C-alpha cells in the first residue's frame, strides 16, 4: 500500500514549547487511522500539519506525494475542524452550495453528502438553529464534497448519539473500502477498536503505533483505554 501521509521528525513549537516532538510515521491508503490521546496531546496540531495550515519548526510532512500545504492538494483533502467551521447564520443548503462552488462539486454531489450524514430533510434549516451534533454533521458533509482522497477529521463524532456514531463509523469504513484514506482523532478510547490502525499520542509524541489487536496483545491491556494507561505508566516509570 502506498503511503498517503508521511511525516519525518516533525517538530512544531508554540509559545516556546514543543507541542509536537520529532514525530515520524506513515498512513496507508484506504485505511481508517485513529489518532487517540488526551486533550492537549497534540492531535489537532498534527492534523493541522496534514492540511498545511500549521507553521512547522522542523521536519517534513508529505501528503498524497506532495509537501503538505501544496496548492494542488487543496481540492484533494477534506478537513473537519474540531468546532464546526460552517456559517451558522445561513441554511444547510446555502452552506453546501458555497463550499461546493469552491470545490467544483455538482449539485448531485450536495445531495449525496447530505444523504451520507442523514440531513437530507434539513436543507432549508438555518444551521444556527441546529443542535451541536447536527452542526458537526453539516461540517462533515461539507468536507465530503468533491470526493476528497484524504479525509482529516478532528473529533467528528463528539456529542453524537450512539446510533448516529455507529452509522458514521460505518460510513467511514465504506469510504475507506472505496479507496479514501481517513485520519480520525478522538479522545474517546472506545472508538479506537473501529480503526484499522491506532496512533496513541501523549505530550506531543506518538507513544504507540499499532493495530487495535496488536496493541492489546503487546500491552496485555483489556481494552484500548487500559493499554493506553499501561503505556503511559511505563513511560512515566522509565
Amino acid at each position, binding site marked *: 500500500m502506498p503511503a498517503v501521509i508521511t511525516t519525518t521528525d516533525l517538530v512544531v513549537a508554540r509559545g516556546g514549547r514543543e507541542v509536537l516532538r520529532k514525530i515520524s510515521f506513515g498512513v496507508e491508503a484506504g485505511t481508517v487511522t485513529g489518532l487517540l490521546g488526551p486533550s492537549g496531546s497534540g492531535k489537532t496540531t498534527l492534523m493541522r500539519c496534514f492540511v498545511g*495550515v500549521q507553521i512547522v519548526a522542523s521536519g517534513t510532512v508529505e501528503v498524497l506525494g506532495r509537501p503538505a500545504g501544496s496548492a494542488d492538494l487543496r481540492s484533494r483533502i477534506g478537513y473537519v475542524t474540531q468546532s464546526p467551521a460552517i456559517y451558522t*447564520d445561513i441554511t444547510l443548503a446555502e452552506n453546501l452550495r458555497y463550499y461546493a462552488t469552491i470545490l467544483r462539486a455538482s449539485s448531485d454531489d450536495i445531495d449525496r453528502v447530505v444523504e451520507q450524514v442523514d440531513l437530507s430533510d434539513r436543507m432549508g434549516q*438555518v444551521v444556527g438553529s441546529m443542535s451541536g451534533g447536527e452542526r458537526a454533521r453539516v461540517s462533515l458533509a461539507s468536507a465530503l464534497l468533491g470526493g476528497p482522497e484524504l479525509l482529516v477529521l478532528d473529533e467528528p463524532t463528539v456529542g453524537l448519539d450512539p446510533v448516529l456514531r455507529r452509522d458514521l463509523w460505518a460510513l467511514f469504513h465504506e469510504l475507506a473500502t472505496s479507496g479514501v484514506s481517513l485520519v480520525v482523532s478522538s479522545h474517546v478510547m472506545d472508538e479506537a477498536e473501529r480503526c484499522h490502525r491506532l496512533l496513541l499520542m501523549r505530550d506531543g509524541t506518538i507513544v504507540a503505533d499499532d493495530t487495535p489487536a496488536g496493541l492489546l496483545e503487546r500491552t496485555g491491556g483489556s481494552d484500548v483505554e487500559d493499554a493506553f494507561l499501561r503505556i503511559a505508566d511505563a513511560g512515566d516509570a522509565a
Partner: protein
Amino acid sequence: MNPRLTVATTRRVLTQLRRDPRTVALLLIVPCVLMTLLRYVFNGSPLVFDRIGPELLGIFPFTTMFVVTSVATLRERSSGTLERLLTMPIAKLDLIAGYAFAFALVAIVQVGLAAALSLGVLGMTVEGGVVLIVVLAACNALLGTALGLFLSAFARTEFQAVQFLPATVLPQILLGGLLIPRNQMAPVLHAVSDVLPLSYAIDAMHRVGNGEQWSGGLAVDLIVVLGSVVAAVGLGAATLRRRTP
C-alpha cells in the same frame, strides 16, 4: 483569482446579511435618520446644510461600512471558517474581493436612499449633480469597506475591532477638511491630512456640493480614493496567512 469564486463569496455574504434583517434595516435607515437630524439641527441656516450635507453623505457610508466589514471579517476568523477556507482551492483575493463587492452593493443602496431623502425631501441642493454625488458616496463606502477589511487583520478581539473606528476613522474625519478647510490647518496637520485617503473623499464631495462638474481636481481625488481601495484590498489579502502558529 477566479471570478466565479469571487461572485460565490459575494453571494454568500449577501445571504448572511439577508438573514439578519435588523442589521440591514440599521444599515439603510441610520444614514437617513442622521441626514434628517442634520437638516433640522441647521434648520435656521439651510446654506450650512447645503455645504456640509454632501460631505456627510459621503462620510456616513464610509464609517458604517468600515464597522460592518471589520466585524464581519473578524467573525469569519474567529468562527474557524476562514482557516477552513484557506485549506480549500480559493484565492485569498477572491475572499477579500468577494467581501468588498458585497458591502459595496449594500453601500450603493444605502447611499441611494440617503441621497434620495436628502435631495428629494430635506431640500438639499447639490449643484454638481445628483448622479455624481451618489457615485462618489459609493466610492467612499468602498473605501470604508476596504480599510475595514485591511485593519481587521490587526484586531484579535471584537473589542479591538470596534476601537479601530475612533482610532483610525475619527482622525481622518477631523483632519479631512470637514470642520475647517485643510489649507487653514497647521502645516504639520495639513501634511498629515495629505496622506489620509478620506481627505480626498471629502474634498471630492465638497467640490461636487459646490457645483463643480467633472474636473481635473475631482479626477485626482477619485483616483486617490480608488487607488487606496485597491491598495487596502491588496494589503488585506496579503495579511491573510494560510499557515499560522
